[in-house]
């Protein structure tokens, strides 16, 4: 099988690359483009560690093919911090000690950011259900939920 030429926007920048037809977006990001901030926890859509935004929708990058992203816009964890420094969610995760090993953190931040953009004032239950696709084995979620709640307050202000 020959590789496919793909042009896509990642974190606001145009990237062109060759992609195996069966390669997942997660593999493309990590292995082809060297963007290892997006993590693999399962490869089967069950853990959310590989979460990215694809044309404004929250997806598991392990369930999307690299070739499918042609002409689309992708946002990864590497694009979350801006010129003014860390995003409020990143700052709140640090302040609340919402990470232990930290391998789930990029996925949680991408997913939580998507939530707060849709729903700036979520209840605890709404946060818990929105993030139910993101597994964390270290924290018991308590501090993650609090970090998201606190970030929501700051972002609303």
């Amino acid at each position, binding site marked *: 099988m020959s590789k496919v030429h793909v042009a896509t926007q990642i974190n606001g920048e145009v990237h062109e690359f060759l992609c*195996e037809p*069966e*390669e997942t977006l997660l*593999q493309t990001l*990590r*292995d082809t483009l*060297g963007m*290892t*901030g*997006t*993590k*693999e*926890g*399962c*490869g*089967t859509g*069950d*853990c959310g*560690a590989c979460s990215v935004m694809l044309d404004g929708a929250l997806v598991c990058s392990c369930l999307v093919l690299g070739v499918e992203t042609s002409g689309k816009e992708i946002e*990864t*964890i*590497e694009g*979350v*911090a801006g010129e003014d420094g*860390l995003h409020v969610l*990143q700052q709140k*995760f*640090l*302040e*609340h*000690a919402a*990470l*232990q*090993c*930290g*391998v*789930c*953190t*990029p996925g949680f*931040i991408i997913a939580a950011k998507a939530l707060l953009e849709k729903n700036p004032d979520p209840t*605890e*239950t709404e*946060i*818990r*259900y929105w*993030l*139910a*696709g*993101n*597994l*964390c*084995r*270290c*924290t*018991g*979620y*308590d*501090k993650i*939920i*609090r970090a998201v709640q606190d970030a929501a307050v700051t972002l609303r202000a």
Partner: protein
Amino acid sequence: MAEAVDYKYIGTRPVRPDGVDKVTGRAQYGADPILPGMIHGRILRSPHAHAMIKSVNLSRALELPGVHAALSGADFPGGIGDEAIGGESGGTMSDLAKNVMARDKVVYHGQAVAAVAAQTPQLALQALKLIEVEYEVLPVVLDVRAAMQESAPLLDPTCITKGVKPEPEKPSNVVSVTTFNRGDVDEGFEQADLVLEREYIVPMAHQGYIEPHGCVAQANEGGAATVWCSTQGHFEFRAATSKLLGMNMADLKFIATEIGGGFGGKTVVYLEPVALLLSQKSGKPVKMQMSREEVFRATGPTSGTYGTAKIGVKKDGTITAAKIWMAFEAGGFAGAPTGPAAMAVFSPYTIENFKVETLDVLVNKPKVAAYRAPGAPQSMHAFESILDEAADELGIDPIDIRLTNAASEGTTAPYGPKFPTIGFVECLEAAKNHPSYKAPVPEGAGRGLAAGFWFNVGMQSSAEVHVAENGTVTVVEGSPDIGGSRASMCLMAAETLGVEYESIRAVVGDTQSTGFSNVTGGSRTTFATGMAVVQACEDIITQCKSRAAATWGVDDDQVEWEDGHCVPKPGVNAEVKPLSLADMAAAAAKTGGPISGRASLNAQGAGASFSVNFTDVAVDPDTGHVEVLNFTAIQDAGKAIHPAYVEGQMQGGAAQGIGWALNEEYIFNDDGVMQNAGFLDYRIPVASDLPMIDCEIVEVPNPSHPYGVRGVGETPIIAPLAAIGNAVAHATGVRINELPLSPPRIVAALDAAHKA
């Protein structure tokens, strides 16, 4: 009890030094390094749970263009001795070797039998299909009770049970029996007003770290190599790899990348020796990463157990006798955590008559590895459940029955020594006074409570502390940071040196850059490595005092260290100006050169950590679903250096325990093939399954640590199993002594009780 001490830095909650890299995706985990010319390794795994390997033929795989190397067990040097591995993971080097790559036999489904390295991961997978392996399939045994039958298929025909007298003549699947005794149990049961005896079953469960095992290995032509790996102990990984490959340890550099969870499961090597051998064969750097399915099938879960418990109690709640018998699944190779399970089970209590017997039993399942307080969740689930049932029968509050029997300073622990200062009574009292315990049980719900205990260990640690020319400080330690320990090291260094947290950074050195340190395990890092950091800082203080003394022309003992400064003792040359660490650093060239401190130690006196957990649950009788309404974890931390990360351990351990109690289990078919090797079907708790987990940190300082630290990492997983079980019993009126309390099991138990 030691006086409460006011600290300036210890007990605060600053942002961890490695935090920004982790929230931005910069932090490098095991599978993240990318090297020029790097290729990808994959492992071929056994399709049988028990079989002889007749032959392995790699040639067709090697012919595939883009494949650079292939290997099987025959490619590993032989002659590996039977020495014990030690630490929290049991077993021998020779078993470890076969678990890394099978030789002539496979003992569980998914055991590694061959490996390839190819240009891309996809190509490597393709190449695996070209490897030809011929097996002779053997009968499978999966249940410990079946494995102990005389007719059972033998996993290791040379296995003669250890720990029983007289020594058995015939081989069996029972590797060893561990026994602890005190007093006369029969007499103790005679004295009791109530005697209960029950069976308890706990399933095999996985640590479930989110990061699969991953590493990159690069060998050079001169025999040296560098390995980047996700590990709880890069020094032990180096030692194991050098033994398994017959390499000179001096040639090996192991770099601990960031680690995406371990919980004990990353204390043993799986991929590193394979990746390194593939790198030697191909001359290229090799990356290996397991799939989630491989993690479930072939890396250490913890033992499922079958056991019985018996308790004798007087009307006033005094335990007169207790007995536990428990068989642990070792998996395909010896090494279930039977020792700690037996030592821990009665440790919270003063019991005059007891007997505990635990068995390490071979079954055709993956070889178990350490998982957070190895063995204690299973054994203590049994005892904390039967004790609760006794309390119910006698109409005694579950806290009161535990207070009546609680171990305290001076109690002889079941495993021998007398306890120094411990905090079990304090935890029980904290529970009793907790607003959530005083609050009524919500309508229709049930409340359950249980205790936990873990010894904690010290072991060997090294640390170096370097003062830069402007007085800022770098701490170099050898303990992989799995949950924020670099922040704790910085806090202890700040407190000891009297300089700001912000001017200190801690790094985890590779095996060639810092002194030997044992694994991050046994809840030892903040205790033992922390002690090394404190001593290394004290070394700096001693050097500073002597340099100040020379500067001032006074004797060394006339200088004191106060709040980060050298000051003259009262009455000594009062004219001189105090010298800060920054002053000392600036003048270092004139006073003897750069200032560095170091300490290497084998830490003694790891204080035990006790816990009490309670929870309210609601059970839906139609669906069998258990909703955890609230959960309170109380634990003695000795002294919480960074309380947020202590709470994190308590909350994370509680979540793992709740998951094990309610849903998590390995499910095998009759051929020994795990049926739920993925996160969809092996269901760990998700955010919507859990409430907030309330924490109360009790602080009864450990006299053996400069700041009173007790390890906190392992204790938290123990109590939730029985606390949830006891709560479900109170919510439904039915005791279910087999975990997990999954919906079908609850519905079946309620139906059976209804019919009875």
